[in-house]
Structure formats: C-alpha cells, structure tokens
C-alpha cells in the first residue's frame, strides 16, 4: 500500500454562481502535516468539508487511503469505514459537543460505533484516551459546560483519535483558544502525531501556528492555491505577492502595522 493518505485533484466547489474552491490539488503522505492557509473567504474550510464528506465537490476527485470518494449515497457501513480513515476537529469547542452528553460518553459513543468492546473495556479505553489528551478520570462524568474551552477542545481531539483515523482534519482548531492554552494543544497534537504516525490537514489563518505544526503548506486565496511548499521555506522566502503580504501582516517583534495601497 502506498504511503499517500489523501490525493485531491482538481477540486472545485460552486455554491450557486459563486466559486468557493477552484482547481485545488494536493497529496498528503502518511505521518505528514499539511497546512491549508488562507484568510476568510479563501475556500480553506470548504476544502476541509469536502475532505470529510460534508460537501460534495462540483468537480475533481478525492481519494482517502487509496479509496476514491464518489458522489452518490453511501451505506452506513461505508460511512463507518470512512470515519476510520478521516476525522475532524472543528474550531468552536462550544458547539461541537452535545451539551447533554457526559465527556466519557462522548468518547465511548465513538468507540462503540467502531469497535466490538465490552462496556468495561470501552470505559477503560475512553479513560485512556482522555488521559492521552491531558484530562483526568473525574472529567469523564462532567458535562461540556463544566469544562473550559481548552478542555472541550481536548475532548473533541480525544473523540476524533478514538477511532484511530489515518487523517485528522483540524479546522481552525486552536483559533478560539487563549494563548497559553493554544500552546498546550499544539504540543499535544505534536505528541499524538509522533506517537501514532497520524497525518494532519491543518486549516488555519495563523502563520505562526502553521509554522509550529506543519511540514508543508498550501496558501489559498479566492478559492485557488497561490503558493505551496515546505512550510519553513514558504515562510522564510515567500515567492508570491499574496503570501508576502500575509506574512508581512503578522505582528512580531519590531513590526508596525501598515496601510495597503488603496486599489
């Protein structure tokens, strides 16, 4: 089996007359972390949604773990199989969890769907997963509202990795978190990748975060890829005007905000 986990080719998505994504192609190798960088309206989230099957491409193809994604209806068995291949963590840890479901049950539900475990085994596995993301046993009986934003994002990560997917899509997964919590989650994601060899598609507008978490990156603007490359090279010496502008706008030591030329 090849070590390519995602092959996206000529992806296009139209919403009515608007073109959200236009001719986007990329490959993701096993264990690799690919960042999709862009500002609002760049189409980066639509790419994420197409990858996990929440949107159907208007044109182009996606194959995950060597299996092409069709456009037709799929059986629940096929859905479960796909879920073992790719999972997602959303931006907002407040709306991505069921507010009436206890934390332990969140993870157990995921496990029950995919593995033939006894209730006791399932419980033990759920606790292991919570521990792996830095939560304690006492959190298992809590409701989402009893947790902080950072803790909820840990739960969302635990739920996603519970099924041991090949690929994890992270859609602005650390954007809503406080700086000190963001660093903890970025380290956690690095640990998980080191341990499991999982691949990431990391959707983000934040170049500093992207620098820390990804090996390669594609930069999107108006639905198209404007530049791609190894992340350190891309940030050190961006070739395209758009990437340069994006980089120049990031506050850092010695930085001053600047007004663009008016069009």
């Amino acid at each position, binding site marked *: 089996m090849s070590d390519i986990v995602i092959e996206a080719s000529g992806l296009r998505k139209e919403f009515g007359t608007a073109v959200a994504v236009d001719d986007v192609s990329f490959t993701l190798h096993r264990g690799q972390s690919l960042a999709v960088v862009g500002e609002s309206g760049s189409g980066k989230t639509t790419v994420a949604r197409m990858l996990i099957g929440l949107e159907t491409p208007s044109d182009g193809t996606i194959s995950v773990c060597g299996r092409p994604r069709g456009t037709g209806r799929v059986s629940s068995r096929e859905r479960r199989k796909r879920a073992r291949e790719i999972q997602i963590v959303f931006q907002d840890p407040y709306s991505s969890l069921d507010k009436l479901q206890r934390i332990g049950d969140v993870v157990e539900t995921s496990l029950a769907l995919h593995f033939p475990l006894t209730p006791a085994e399932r419980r033990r596995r759920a606790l292991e997963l919570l521990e792996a993301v830095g939560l304690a046993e006492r959190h298992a009986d809590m409701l989402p509202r009893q947790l902080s934003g950072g803790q909820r994002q840990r739960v969302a990560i635990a739920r996603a990795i519970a099924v041991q997917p090949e690929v994890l899509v992270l859609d602005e997964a650390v954007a809503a978190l*406080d700086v*000190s919590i963001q660093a903890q989650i970025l380290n956690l994601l690095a640990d998980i990748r080191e341990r499991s060899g999982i691949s990431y598609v990391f959707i983000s507008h934040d170049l500093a975060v992207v620098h820390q978490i990804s090996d390669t990156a594609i930069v999107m603007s108006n639905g198209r890829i404007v530049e791609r490359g190894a992340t350190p090279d891309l940030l050190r010496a961006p070739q395209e005007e758009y990437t340069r502008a994006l980089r120049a*706008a990031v506050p850092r030591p010695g930085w001053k905000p600047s007004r663009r030329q008016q069009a």
Partner: protein
Amino acid sequence: MSVHKLHTSDKAESHSADGALLSLRGLGLAVPAGKEWRPLVEEVDLSIGRGEAVGLVGESGSGKSMTARTVLGLTPPGARVTGEIVFDGTPVTGADQRALRALRTRRIAMIFQDPRAHINPVRTIGDFLTEAMIANLEVPAPEAAARAVRLLADVGITDGERRMRQYPHELSGGLLQRVMIASVLAVEPDLVLADEPTTALDVTTQSEVMAILDELRRERGMAMLLITHDLELAAATCDRLAVMYAGRIVETQPATALTSTPRHPYTSGLMLSRPSIDAVVHRLPVIPGRPLAAFEADDGCAFAPRCAHAQGLCHEGRPPVQELDGARVACVRAGELTLQGES
C-alpha cells in the same frame, strides 16, 4: 485636517494633579453571586496620559474588557464598583447618568470587537455616522454628511458617498470596523477605548485597520486604551503595556522594555508560549493549567499555581506592586528573577 477641533477650551481648562487624562486608582468590580460578591477586577491602578496609547493585555477572564467598560459605566447589572476613576481631573465614579452620557458622547469613545453587533442593522452607514454629530454636536445635517464622507476617506474608504447609502450587511467586517473608527473620529474624543478592535478580522485587514487607527489617533492627539489578547499587536501600537491576570494588573512597563525584559513570570510565559513565524521549537514552552478569573483565585498570588518560579512566600497573600527599574510589577520574586523576553 478637515475636521473641526471641538470644545478645545474646556479641555485646556482642567488638568488633573498628575497630568494624566485617565487615572484608575484601586479600581475594583464585583458582581453579585447569590449572597456573595464575585470579584472580576481587583485593585487596578492605571493611568493614561494625553495622547498616550496604553495596551491592556490579558487572556479570557483576566478582567481587561471589564476594566475598560467600567470607565464608561458599562458594568453588568447590580455590579459594585470600588476605587476611583478620574477623567481629566473629574471623578467619574459616582457620576450620574447625565454626566456619564456627556462623557460617552464627547470625551471617551469606544470601539468594540464586533462592529456588526454595535451598528444598527436597519439604518444606513450614513445615518450611523451622522447621528452623533447631529444629535450631540449640533452640526447641521448636510455638513455632518459632508464631514462623514471626509472621515470615511480618512479611514481609507474612497467611495464614501456610495457607502453612506449602504446598510451594514453590505459591508465586510474590515470595512465596517473602519466605519466604526470613522464614527469615533467624528466626535474627536480625548480617549478611545478599543476593545479587541481587530480580533475578528483577517491579519492583512488587522494590519490595515490598526495602521489607520494608530495614524489618525496620533494626528488628532487622542489617547487610546487598547484591550487585546495579542501582546505583539499591543507592543507594536502602544507606548506602554499593562498585563492583566485574574482581575489584576501584574506588570506595567513601556512597551519595548516589557517585551525585551519582562518582569513578571506570566508576561514572559505568555510571550514564550506563542509560536513564531521566524523560528520553530520542538515543543512550545507552556504555562500549565488554564487562566483564572479573579473570583477563582485563592489567597496567594493568583498566578502561583501555574508559575515555574513559585515558592512558599508566593502563596501567602496577594503580592504587592513594586517599582523595579521603571516597571511596576506584582511579583514578590521579581527582583531576583531574570526572565526571558522575545529574542
């Protein structure tokens, strides 16, 4: 500048003793929770000089927003304010609604994070921009409209006449925030309270909006209190920075000094835990745990449970604020620690 200089006479007359435009002394804010008071802000001392830009930096729950809102009396229902707020020599604490209203309409303006939530969606941009000029400054409507178009040009919106006829939903977040800035400039306040003004914007738009705010503020000699979670952004646009944690200011220093030689372990930790576009580290140095609100902190230094430098003494009472080489820092170990700033 095309904009009229307003009520300059009453500005010149009054000066507070220490020359500060705004000074907060021992400011506290607590909200009722059952039979108890739940503190959100405690013992905040902060002053802003005329034309000065001060950044108030902190994570969620630090009380930074509440501090700014308290200045304008925008406190939660039933809240209790303690300490003193003095604006231009006059106490604001205990001022009646009329006095507060006068302050809000002419002297202190606020820019909020989400302009969409603060600009009336069923009125045009033109209505929004001219309302304050017509109602509060008694500018005739045609003149107010002409001035609004000039203000829009100042904030980089060139087709002002067309924009004036549009509604908020027709404008992007970045454009709407510029409209908000234009509305602030319209009344030429002495002080702008900017609460995360660019947090909801894309980075390139953030850079542009901050540049506009910075430039126009300087031109007009307006002071600014910038509330933000982004230390880098604050350092780039402010003269002085104050870092808040659990409802208190833990460190105040000139911006360049604070980023090169932070004096409080929290400030240093905050800077180091932020990834950089210039360098990658194998693991980010993290501050363990999560940020606390004032009411969650126990008796000692509120940061002590997360602090790598904490000792026994740190758990005994709130650390007093001390002066140290031009810095004001609330850490009992500040004098003996050498902390890493940005490289």
